[in-house]
Structure formats: structure tokens, C-alpha cells
């Protein structure tokens, strides 16, 4: 039962935080303690053990532990920022509930249950998106997010249910159709450019912490769930047999990678730069998965986990810079530490060495070249465009110079950015511990691809 303990603790804590949500002095520390307890439970849980809860089988895997630890650490930093710097009372129960669903997704083994819990998690932030409803148009963004999640979620669960119930003598085209529906469903849930038209609206209107919760925690969880569902559902052999499905994944991935990078290179503000960079990296990761190779899968998962953490740091820094510089454009002079945090977060987003983002991007681009030179060139072009976008942001922030270097009052976002940077630097110098559980999962994926 220790496997289920961490998500259950967070679920109970979310109910407690909901009751206490208007007492900020209590709910902040309460939420942080709950996250710390959950993290301890995740780390104490022995690997490769199984358990059953409500007839559903659970499993503690290496990838699950790694992703859970990163997600909980990110949530801890987000809650700390909201508690100390940007009080939003409805964020605490939402973040804890999102943590519970994310951890649940990472321990479940039934594809239908994984998908159901994922949809639940993606619907939860709707409340935090519409905070301060009188000051922005976030209701529209939240409504679009709600529609996309409901549509993608229901289509995906229905496709999985039909795939599980179809007799084996069905024509291969039927399975292909279901895989296509599943891929489209995930494209709706993920920030994939062809479908995710509300990303720009979310980036512009939603509070930074809620945005970081979505792009830093839920989007990486969705991506991992996608790969796990492919592995566990038994649909992978059908994908191998029909090249069209692989081409579809490639098409969505490349469109997102190039389209997101183009938009990032000309992004009008810091938040949009982060969101479009995230979309581009997700697209590149989809290309990595579409290669159906070990390095591609390792690179994709490593890249998505690192991108989520660095996007969270950048979004918090962007929020601080906007608040301190308002009503003018954000500049480093108003909050130098937050500006530095934004810049170093950008290094991780582009996969610059020696940070932890580098191995993942290197694997993806290497295998993409091996798969098709044009695909590899497209991913390199996307990286170059992201560098242009991040450099433009540096110029915008520091272009007027900083008269006097000082640590701004309440430098929460700056410190959080520094913590994330140090963690990524240490991980980049010693990437073995980070990549090993992902490699172990990649083995499982490849075994499911070609069953004996």
C-alpha cells in the first residue's frame, strides 16, 4: 500500500487545503508539509513492487519514482512562490490535487485508469486559471482548456475501451483508426500546435503560477502517460505494422517543433516565449517517440521532464518581472535576480550543456538525423530559433542596462530559479542517475513494440 500512499496523502491534503484555503498563513505551510511527506513516501517506496487498490493494479517503477520526485519538487517550489510572493488562495488545493492525480498516473498500470486520472488532473486547474476574473479574460482561456480536455479525454478513453474490446479477427485498419484517434486525443490534451489554439490565450491571461502548474507539471505528466499508455495498451505492434501512424506522430511532432520555435523566436512577451518554447520542445519529443527507438524514447522523456521544471522557473520569474515592472515592459532593473533566473532557465529550455537538458536534446537530434536527415535538420532549426527567441528576451530585459545590482525585495522567484539551475547543473554533470530509470522504461517500450 505504500505505493498508493503518496497520491492518497496528497488527495487528503487537497481536501484539507480546500477547507483552509482562505487562511493563507496556515494553508501555505500545510501544503508544503504535505508535499514533503509525499516526496518522502515516494522515495521510501521500494522499486518494482506491485499492489492492488479498488481492483486496479499499481506498480512502483523507476521512471515513476523519477518523474514523481521532479513533479513534487516543482510543486513545492510553486507553492512556496504562491505562498510568499503571489497569494492566490485557490491555488493550494488545486496544486495538491494535481499532485495527487499526477502521482496516481505514474503508479497505475491499467491504460484506461491512467487516462481517466489524467483527464481528472487536467480539469482541476480550471479553477486556478480564472483567478482574478475581473482583471483579465482568463475565463475564455479556461473555457477553451475545458473544451479541449473534455474532447481529447473522452475520445482517448473511448478509443482505448474499443481497442480493448475488439476481437482479434478485426481488420488491421480498425486498430489503426483507433491508434489515430488516440494520438489525436493526446494532441488535444498536449500543447501540440495544430490543435492547441488556446495556448496563446492561456499564456497571456492566466496567472503565472497556474500557468506553471499546467506547463510545468501537467503537460510533462500527460506526455509520460501517453508513452506509458502506448506501452501498456498493446497497440504498439499495430503502429509498427502501419507506417502511417508513425508518419502522423512525426507530422504532429515536427509541426509543433518548428511552429512553436517560430512563434517563440518572435514572441511579444516573456510568458509567450516560455509557452511556445515548451510547445516546440514537446514537438521535438514527439518526434523522438515517433522514431520508435531507444535513444529517441530516452531523449524525449528526459527532455520533457527537464523542460517542465525549467518552464516553471521561467514562468515564475516572468510573473515577478511583470508585477515589478508594471505598467511598463518587464526590465531587469526592477528585479535583477528574477531576470537572471529567467535567463538561466532559458539555457535549460534550449538544452545547452552542461545542464541536464542537454543529454535529452542530443539523443533526440542524433536519432532524428539517423532516422531522416531532413527531420534532424528540422529539429536543429527549431533549436536555433529557440536560441534566437531566448536571446531576444535577454536583450529586452537587459538592453537598458542595470544601473545598480541589488537583490530585490522578496526575491522568491529569483531564488527558485537559482535552485532549479543548480539542480539541473548537478544533474547535467552526473546524468547517469537521471537517465538510467528512463532507459529502463525505454527497454519496456521496445519489448512491447515487438512482443515475442
Amino acid at each position, binding site marked *: 500500500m505504500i505505493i498508493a500512499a503518496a497520491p492518497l496523502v496528497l488527495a487528503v491534503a487537497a481536501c484539507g487545503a480546500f477547507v483552509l484555503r482562505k487562511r493563507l498563513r496556515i494553508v501555505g505551510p500545510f501544503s508544503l508539509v504535505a508535499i514533503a511527506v509525499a516526496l518522502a513516501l515516494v522515495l521510501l517506496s521500494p522499486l518494482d513492487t506491485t499492489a492492488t487498490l*479498488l481492483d486496479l493494479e499499481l506498480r512502483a517503477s523507476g521512471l515513476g519514482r523519477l518523474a514523481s520526485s521532479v513533479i513534487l519538487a516543482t510543486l513545492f517550489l510553486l507553492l512556496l512562490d504562491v505562498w510568499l510572493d503571489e497569494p492566490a488562495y485557490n491555488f493550494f488545493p488545486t496544486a495538491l490535487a494535481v499532485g495527487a492525480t499526477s502521482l496516481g498516473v505514474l503508479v497505475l498500470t*491499467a491504460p484506461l485508469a491512467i487516462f*481517466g486520472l489524467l483527464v*481528472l488532473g487536467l480539469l482541476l486547474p480550471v479553477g486556478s486559471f480564472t483567478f482574478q476574473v475581473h482583471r483579465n479574460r482568463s475565463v475564455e482561456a479556461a*473555457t477553451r482548456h*475545458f473544451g479541449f480536455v473534455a474532447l481529447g479525454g*473522452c*475520445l482517448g*478513453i*473511448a478509443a482505448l475501451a474499443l481497442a480493448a474490446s475488439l476481437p482479434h479477427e478485426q481488420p488491421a485498419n480498425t486498430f489503426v483508426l483507433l491508434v489515430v484517434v488516440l494520438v489525436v486525443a493526446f494532441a488535444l490534451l498536449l500543447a501540440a500546435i495544430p490543435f492547441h489554439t488556446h495556448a496563446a490565450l492561456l499564456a497571456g491571461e492566466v496567472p503565472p503560477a497556474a500557468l506553471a502548474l499546467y506547463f510545468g507539471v501537467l503537460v510533462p505528466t500527460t506526455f509520460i502517460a501517453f508513452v506509458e499508455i502506448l506501452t501498456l495498451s498493446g497497440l504498439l505492434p499495430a503502429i509498427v505494422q502501419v507506417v502511417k501512424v508513425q508518419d502522423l506522430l512525426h507530422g504532429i511532432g515536427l509541426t509543433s517543433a518548428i511552429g512553436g520555435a517560430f512563434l517563440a523566436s518572435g514572441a511579444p512577451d516573456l510568458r509567450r516565449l516560455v509557452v511556445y518554447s515548451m510547445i516546440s520542445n514537446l514537438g521535438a519529443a514527439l518526434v523522438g517517440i515517433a522514431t520508435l527507438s531507444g535513444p529517441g524514447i530516452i531523449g524525449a522523456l528526459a527532455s520533457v521532464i527537464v523542460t517542465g521544471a525549467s518552464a516553471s522557473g521561467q514562468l515564475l520569474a516572468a510573473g515577478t518581472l511583470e508585477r515589478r515592472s508594471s505598467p511598463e515592459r518587464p526590465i531587469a532593473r526592477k528585479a535583477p535576480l528574477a531576470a537572471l533566473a529567467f535567463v538561466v532557465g532559458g539555457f535549460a529550455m534550449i538544452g545547452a550543456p552542461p545542464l541536464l537538458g542537454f543529454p535529452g536534446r542530443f539523443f533526440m537530434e542524433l536519432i532524428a538525423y539517423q532516422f531522416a536527415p531532413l527531420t534532424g535538420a528540422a529539429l536543429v532549426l527549431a533549436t536555433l530559433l529557440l536560441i534566437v527567441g531566448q536571446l531576444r528576451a535577454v536583450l529586452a530585459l537587459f538592453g537598458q542596462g542595470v544601473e545598480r545590482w541589488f537583490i530585490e525585495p522578496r526575491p522568491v522567484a529569483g531564488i527558485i530559479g537559482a535552485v532549479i539551475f543548480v539542480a539541473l547543473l548537478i544533474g547535467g554533470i552526473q546524468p547517469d542517475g537521471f537517465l538510467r530509470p528512463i532507459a529502463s522504461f525505454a527497454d519496456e517500450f521496445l519489448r512491447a513494440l515487438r512482443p515475442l
Partner: protein
Amino acid sequence: MIPLGIVALATLAANGSRQLRYSAVALLGVSLAANVVTAGQLSVSQLAVEGCGALVACGEDPGWRLWLATIVAAAATAACFATLRTASSETVTVPLIGEDPSGVTAQVAAFWLISSGVAILVTARTPVRGSLGAILMITGVELLVRLLTVPQLGLSLLLGWVEVVIALAGGFLIVNERVVREN
């Protein structure tokens, strides 16, 4: 067959309703009829979970007419059933009332609800229509999942929660949208 007809008519009523109270009654009809379709395969605990989800869902959904969505849904239902049905090609008996051992009625109802939900969601501009489409879709998904030989208790509980959260989030958005309009 009769519960299937009720599902179809109630969906049309929910889609075409202009007032919250009629839409709520229609959605309750959809939920009850959908449960009757598969009632023979459900345990009491599953029925309780589904019933609670449906009751919560019903309180939140007004709607307005969009018959184009209905026509698209009807075409999509036929296409889905022709392509994706799991019932074998042998002769299938479809009783007017009573159990549906082959699952054909449940599958048609599920495809109809999912197709209607997709059509409504794709054309939705407001949270009201979005919530309506989402609830219809999740009800159809629940019907499909019940036909599987998988752990039903955990999945029913999970999908029941998804339905409740869809209803609550939809209601929250509707209230917020009205606040924005009034200001």
C-alpha cells in the same frame, strides 16, 4: 431498444433546450436511460457511483438548439457502429425491453452520445454548450467501459469522479462567464 430511444430523444432535448431546468431534466433522462441500458451488468455500488455523478452533472447545464450538431452526430454514430462495433456479425437479438446480452444497444447508445458530445463541443462557444457536450461524451464513454471485462469498481469510481469534476468545472465556468458579462 426503448432505453436507446430514450437516450436519443433525451440527448436531442438537452441539445435543443433553451432553459436550464429543461436541460437538466433531459440530462437526467440521458443518464437514467444510459444506466438502464447496461443495468443488467452493473453492481449496486457501481449504480450508486454513476447515479451520484449524474445527479451532480444535471444541475449545471443549460443549452440552445444546434440541429446541425445533431445531424453530424447521427451520421457519425452510423459510421462508428459500422466500423468499430465489437458485436460479431452473427444474428443479434435486440429486445424491446430487458437485458442486452450482445451489448449492441449499449454500443449504439455510447456512439450516439459520444458523437453528439463531439459535435456539440466542437461548435461550442460558451461554457454552457461545452459542459453539455462534455457530460454527454463522458456518459457515452462510461457505457463503452462497462462492456469491458476489466476491473469495473475502480474504473466506475474514477469515471464517476471525472463526471463530477466536469460538471463542477463547467458550472464554475458558467458562473464566471456571467460575472464577466455583468461587469
